[in-house]
């Protein structure tokens, strides 16, 4: 399996770099234009969350295979403050910052699979996948 490529998030410029990496990877894996936009937009939301809440982190994008299906996997990791209530942040409209509260639930809707692990004071890892039709 491919090791994937990572983008380090340190500033708002890196959000653009991460979503460009996701789009390019999706394109090379054969995703169509609309799925490329979905994946790039989801990564933009996740990378922005890292920047806003943790300050720094990484976004890794790689190819995945399961049961003969191929897809893309996005792993978003930070050692930030963590999320105290995952149920709350997954609600539309919930935000503790200047966002619209669409980031995480929106990213989940744009992808096929979405897992979130977080521990307060330790950090947050989000893994999401999209499968090719």
């Amino acid at each position, binding site marked *: 399996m491919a090791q994937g490529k990572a983008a380090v998030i340190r500033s*708002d*410029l890196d*959000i*653009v770099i991460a*979503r*460009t990496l996701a*789009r390019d990877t999706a394109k090379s894996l054969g995703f169509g*234009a*609309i799925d*490329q*936009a*979905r994946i*790039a*937009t989801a990564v*933009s*939301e996740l990378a*922005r969350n890292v920047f806003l809440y943790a300050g720094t982190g990484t976004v890794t994008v790689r190819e995945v295979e399961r049961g003969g299906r191929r897809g893309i996997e996005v792993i978003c990791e930070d050692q930030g403050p963590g999320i105290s209530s995952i149920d709350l942040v997954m609600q*539309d409209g919930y935000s503790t910052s200047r*966002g*619209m509260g*669409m*980031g995480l*639930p*929106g990213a989940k*809707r*744009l992808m096929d699979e979405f897992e979130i692990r977080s521990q307060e004071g330790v950090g947050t890892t989000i893994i999401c996948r999209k499968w090719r039709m």
Partner: protein
Amino acid sequence: MESLRIPILKIGDVLIASIQVALHDASAVQFKDDLLQRIYETKARGLIVDLTAVDVVDSFIGRLISDIASMAGLMGTRVVITGLQPAVAITLVELGLELPRVLTALNLEKGLAALQRQVEESGDGAG
């Protein structure tokens, strides 16, 4: 770091800005501030923001577009967003951002026509 500046063109009493680069957050905020300042300086009655070349609109940029329309509206300037790509329209709705109060048009030409109608309807023809 100096942020990218999006050129804002003036034709008659309409301002036109076409986003041709991937906007990062700081340059997007700069763009909003520049637009409002130019509206104030030029007393433009209409503003078109053309997104033909934009391939990703996330919640941050989506909110910014909505804010630009609201803020310019408060100043008395009509805003039309033009040229949304199909993939961008799909992701915006799936993201949950339907921009209900933002006037849109398929392209720049239709956007200009829509602005013209808006300005005529609002009855402030000769300025």
